[in-house]
């Protein structure tokens, strides 16, 4: 009896120990560590789910180049990310919007009295994805978009839409609109565009929650995209990457200077032209959503990395700097386009690099 028990316990312990030993972190298939591996240590970050997949790919590249470093990014939402950072749970936060004044005060305490800075790192484009049989090209302007999403226009062959699309046969069908049912930065940025460009048509409040009457809600970008894909004569606003993965068609947007296709390059132009409203190395942006040059795609969003300019523990600070230097590099930024994100370019990228260089 006693012997059996001891035997069982031994087997149990041995199993646990062998289990601990057999796992592997190596997913690259090669065992040789790259030479000249520099950075090491571990970082924690959390926040915006909009930049989750971009961050995952960057972390993978960074960890592959620096096998001694481990970075974990938890996509628990912008608000939770900022809170985690201010509670010293993480080393940097990802956020859809720059720090609000009261958050900045809390962040200054966390950074031992120094300022926390907003660094724009990942851009995105919001496409108006539609599903109409036989219509491969559709142009919308802010007024018609606002009228469609508030229910003022209900048919695809409405004269206002037809006027923008001469030569296109639009069906006499009721428009099904889809919006986000959950609180999201996508809704926030889409309504910001409507409010900036056509305040007389879109008279409702902006913000992260959709308030316009009518239409159907769907949860998450994937929910909206798959709803559009399966519903004939529908339209909805969704990040460009989901348009690509679900093979949807996106409307061209005419802000007044000609129709612009929803592409990563066209959106990058709008982001590059944004003015910095932060002071010093704080690069919170003001985006001109009324841009009319006929080449910039106006419905964009920018997500920031938020960290201490000074005041992090030395080891953490060095690793944050090293990682953000990598994410601001040409290599990392150009990898964004293929994942459906929008890179930071031009003067703004230079400012981003200067801000990262100032972290100490």
């Amino acid at each position, binding site marked *: 009896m006693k012997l059996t028990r001891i035997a069982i316990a031994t087997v149990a312990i041995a199993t646990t120990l062998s289990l601990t030993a057999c796992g*592997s972190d190596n*997913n690259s298939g090669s065992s040789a560590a790259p030479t000249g591996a520099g950075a090491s240590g571990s970082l924690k970050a959390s926040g915006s789910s909009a930049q*989750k*997949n971009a961050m*995952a790919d960057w972390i993978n590249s960074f960890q592959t180049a620096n096998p001694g470093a481990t970075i*974990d990014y938890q996509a628990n939402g912008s608000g939770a990310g900022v809170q985690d950072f201010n*509670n010293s749970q993480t080393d940097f936060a990802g956020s859809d919007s720059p720090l609000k004044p009261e958050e900045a005060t809390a962040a200054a305490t966390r950074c031992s009295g120094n300022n926390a800075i907003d660094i724009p790192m990942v851009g995105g484009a919001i496409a108006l994805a539609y599903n109409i049989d036989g219509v491969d090209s559709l142009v919308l302007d802010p007024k018609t978009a606002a009228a469609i999403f508030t229910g003022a226009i209900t048919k695809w062959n409405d004269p206002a839409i037809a006027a923008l699309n001469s030569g296109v046969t639009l069906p006499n069908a009721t428009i099904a609109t889809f919006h986000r049912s959950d609180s999201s930065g996508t809704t926030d940025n889409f309504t910001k565009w409507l409010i900036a460009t056509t305040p007389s048509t879109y008279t409702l409040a902006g913000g992260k929650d959709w308030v316009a009457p009518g239409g159907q809600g769907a949860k998450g970008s994937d929910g909206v995209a798959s709803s559009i894909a399966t519903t004939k004569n529908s339209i909805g606003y969704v990040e460009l990457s989901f348009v690509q993965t679900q093979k949807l068609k996106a409307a061209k947007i005419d802000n007044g200077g000609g129709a612009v296709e929803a592409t990563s390059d066209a959106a990058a132009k709008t982001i590059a032209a944004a003015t910095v409203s932060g002071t010093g190395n704080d690069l919170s942006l003001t985006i001109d959503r009324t841009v009319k040059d006929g080449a910039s795609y106006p419905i964009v969003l920018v997500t920031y990395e938020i960290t201490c300019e000074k005041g992090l523990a030395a080891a953490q600070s060095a690793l944050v700097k090293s990682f953000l230097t990598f994410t601001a590099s040409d290599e990392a930024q150009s990898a964004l386009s293929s994942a459906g994100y929008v890179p930071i370019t031009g003067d703004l990228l230079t400012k981003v690099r200067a801000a990262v260089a100032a972290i100490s």
Partner: protein
Amino acid sequence: MSTQLRGSILPKWFAAALAMLSIGAALLIENTTNVSGIGGTTALAVVLYLVLQTAWSFTVEGRRHAVDRLFATLIYSSFVAAALPLATLIWQVVHKGIAQFNANFLSHSMRSVSPSKPGGGIYHALLGTLEQVGIATLIAVPIGILTAIYLVEYSRGGRLGKWISFFVDVMTGVPSIVAGLFIYTAFILTFGMERSGFAASLSLTILMMPVIVRATEEMLKIVPADLREASLALGIPQWKTILRIVLPTAIGGIITGVMLSVARVAGETAPLLLTTFLSQSINSNPFAGPQAAIPTFIWDQISSATPASLDRAWAGALTLILLIMIFYGTAKLIARYYAPKA
């Protein structure tokens, strides 16, 4: 009237014929009207079957047989309705999870695996779940069993015992997210503790304890009082009676209760989202640094929403179900092994 004692009985083939007739009629109705979907058609077929059978049986066999058949059919269809969701769920998880479920998946972490590419594995989360649940068990089992012993052997309906019983009941109903919030505010925000596997263990402990207390209490209650009295009559002190007579008699049921509580908390997601920090790499130290767990692994893969990560989420769900089945199986084996020999 005939002189036979038995009334007329429907032939044996009637059930099959009637079932086919009902399904056929339901399909016809589905095609000709706008009733659609497999659920609606099934419900329609069952209702048709019930009505037709009762009517037929009533005219041929009489009222008593008709009522008997009606209730027999209702009971069988309730059983099928109850088992169907479970069967569908298991089929879905196995069907969708099996593609990614292999030795590589079990032995590798997600470190440096792109969300959009296949590969990687669940090892880091499996290790995390085993450690977190293991620590939670180590804390909850002694407290839970000792509380139950107090309630049954010492308090015997006293005022303190009643209060403890009441609060254990309240704790049983605490939603898991509240347990997570408690640890998050009390330990992480107030004391600045790092989010870790250990913080997760603490929140799981809160969920396990009442289950263990209740299960142990029930098992101790059914130990015959004669055994205790016989032991005490021989001059054996109470603590020794409990340790050598009461506990060994009830041990099978207690172990089952403990294993069931382990299985219950192993799949908890809500408290882990607040108390652990999700990692893609292996971390065998539950006391420091980010550590993954299977439920948070599944959550993370779903939120990436790429085809490859959804495959991983299904394989993760399959792993979790298998793990919990192993817990249940072990519980049954141990309970049988320790059951008092009659």
